[in-house]
């Protein structure tokens, strides 16, 4: 179980503050889960240089220097906590293929033109410090704090699940029929990194988006197929969407101003956002997809 947060900035003047605001939101959700945390940041010029593809890797058994040397001359590797951000002036897909070939045991936490996905084990506050999240910039970020059930708490267990280019999904709740859907996706050739129910949701959405559906339709289809209680936040480089299941027991609050749209498991995650006192605040209706586009 967990806490989820998301922030979509509309006003470019706020882009330099993305990391600081996201840090505040994430740490407010630490008491919903403090074993591990994950964030995705869209548009930080250092982490995901414009014109480059970036791959976020976990469980890499080598130093950052070794990785850079292995993957090629134009590749930069930044290590933030347990995450390796690998960038190169190439498509993210080709960089991903190269990384997978060189490090087949590594876990791909995310990939794309603009997204950096950082995950780690430990208290969210400590993790945000290790990542230097407060200094990050960008137009959008999502985050997740996790209460682990397995004794071996691993960074890969955390959301966001980023299984498509520049795509992220965070989930609060629990699916009830994901085992069957996982089998169906496997039969269609999809590979899974974990036994986690959230990963099934992420790969389902990624499949739909790859088939050409827009995010609203993909999420509507998810609602039709998945049983369980869930609040989902799905982000792409150009969109930010929230949906809840039909029964909608898991918490979710959305706040919106002209400058930003934010979503969190609890209202208190919003307290540090500029202008929140005047924000329109509401709780999403069941099975309604709320989406914002850049």
């Amino acid at each position, binding site marked *: *179980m*967990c*806490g989820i947060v998301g922030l979509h900035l509309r006003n470019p003047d706020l882009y330099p503050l993305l990391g600081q605001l996201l840090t505040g939101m994430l740490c407010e959700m630490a*008491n*919903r*889960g403090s074993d591990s945390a994950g964030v995705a940041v869209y548009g930080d010029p250092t982490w995901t240089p414009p014109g480059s593809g970036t791959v976020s890797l976990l469980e890499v058994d080598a130093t950052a220097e070794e990785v850079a040397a292995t993957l090629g001359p134009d590749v930069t590797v930044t290590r933030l906590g347990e995450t390796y951000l690998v960038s190169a002036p190439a498509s993210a897909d080709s960089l991903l293929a190269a990384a997978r070939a060189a490090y087949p045991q590594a876990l791909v936490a995310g990939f794309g033109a603009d997204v950096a996905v950082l995950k780690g084990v430990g208290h969210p506050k400590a993790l945000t410090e290790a990542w230097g999240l407060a200094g990050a910039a960008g137009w959008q970020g999502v985050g997740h704090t996790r*209460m*682990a*059930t397995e*004794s071996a708490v691993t960074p890969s267990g955390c959301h966001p699940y980023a299984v498509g280019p520049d795509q992220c999904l965070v989930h*609060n*709740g*629990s699916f009830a029929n994901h085992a069957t859907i996982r089998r169906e996706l496997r039969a269609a050739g999809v590979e899974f990194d974990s036994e986690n129910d959230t990963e099934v949701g992420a790969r389902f959405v990624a499949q739909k988006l790859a088939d050409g559906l827009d995010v609203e339709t993909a999420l509507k289809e998810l609602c039709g197929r998945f049983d369980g*209680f869930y609040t989902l936040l799905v982000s792409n480089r150009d969109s930010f969407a929230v949906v809840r299941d039909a029964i909608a*027991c*898991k*918490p979710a609050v959305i706040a919106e101003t002209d400058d930003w749209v934010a979503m969190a*498991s609890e209202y208190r995650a919003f307290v540090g956002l500029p202008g929140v006192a005047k924000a329109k605040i509401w709780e999403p209706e069941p099975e309604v997809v709320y989406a914002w586009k850049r």
Partner: protein
Amino acid sequence: MTNWALRESATFDRPTIAAIQRAAETGIYDIRGWGAKRALPHFDDLLFLGASMSRYPLEGYRERCGTDVVLGDRNAKHPLHLDIPVTIAGMSFGALSGPAKEALGRGASEVGTSTTTGDGGMTAEERGQSKHLVYQYLPSRYGMNPDDLRKADAIEVVLGQGAKPGGGGMLLGQKISERVAGMRTLPEGVDQRSACRHPDWTGPDDLTIKIGELREITDWEKPIYVKVGATRTYYDVKLAVHAGADVVVVDGMQGGTAATQEVFIEHVGVPTLAAIPQAVQALQELGVHHKVQLIVSGGIRSGADVAKALALGADAVAIGTAALIALGDNHPRHAAEYEKLGSAAGFYDDFQDGNDPAGISTQDPELAARFDPVAGGRRLANYLRVLTMEAQTIARACGKAHVLHLEPEDLVAVSIEAAAMARVPLAGTEWIPGR
């Protein structure tokens, strides 16, 4: 002359035929009390390795075998100190008569253990009689109030029970008497529909906050238990601990109820034997075994069952059905009346009808008046003493100076299923299937 050629179908046996015919006649599912009646791998399939050349027994009486247990000392100012590791499980006033609840309090207090309220709130009689009272906090919240919360010795947040994990309470109209209706804020005589989820939290992340609220309201004085019916026990226990539980209660599918659908009782949940090692493993992995105590229930009948549950890693057990039987439920003296009700002594499980000739699971004042709470309390105390002495006998024979010193290595199994579920070796071998 019996016809020896008659052969009953194992698939469509007589109870199954009767059930199908009943469904066809009434158009509504069958509701009954008690827990799962089918044969399941259970404690009977485990045996103790008594004293031998390498293990030495303790003498009875002179060489003490302790039975006391402390529950809920992780966070609470006032944990429960019980003299015996057998508690009385939650059963509501409403499901049971007032005199029956009084008897449970009397018997438990006489031997220094606790009783638990049920899905209907706390009665003054039970608080008056019970030296240690655990107050259940259920999805229905019938009768829940802060004054009673403060009067309780512990609070048990109930997610579910073994008879119906995932189901809510049920009390049919004939048992919603004026008093029961008043306590539950319901119209008299309605069939009570109960919620299966709590109204203001779902999931361990929100349970954490809820447990915090209950602690804040009671100034951190009382242990908070979390009770689950046995299903995905390993994960449930881990999440309960993460959410802040001081004690975890796991109720296997043999656990009883006063009323629910027959299909729920027989086909949902896992046997107690399969649940205990999962719970213990969860606690051990989190480093809190015996620090967050484990109470196990669902088919505890004798001191041997008590000893086996403790050996597998529980800190205490709870009894429900057995306590009612000790009070006088299903006693042969009522045989004629059970027959009039279409049942028989030893088979009677229609608690939902409220016609119990023993006066235990009824709200009918005439029937309830038959039950003498003082005598009933004495019978329960006797039974609890026997359970304790039997467990001590076994513990001494295994060389233990305290019943809580029993361990899984004191046990072997006599069936493969029991060996696999309980995670102890098949007798005469070192084999634990699946490990």
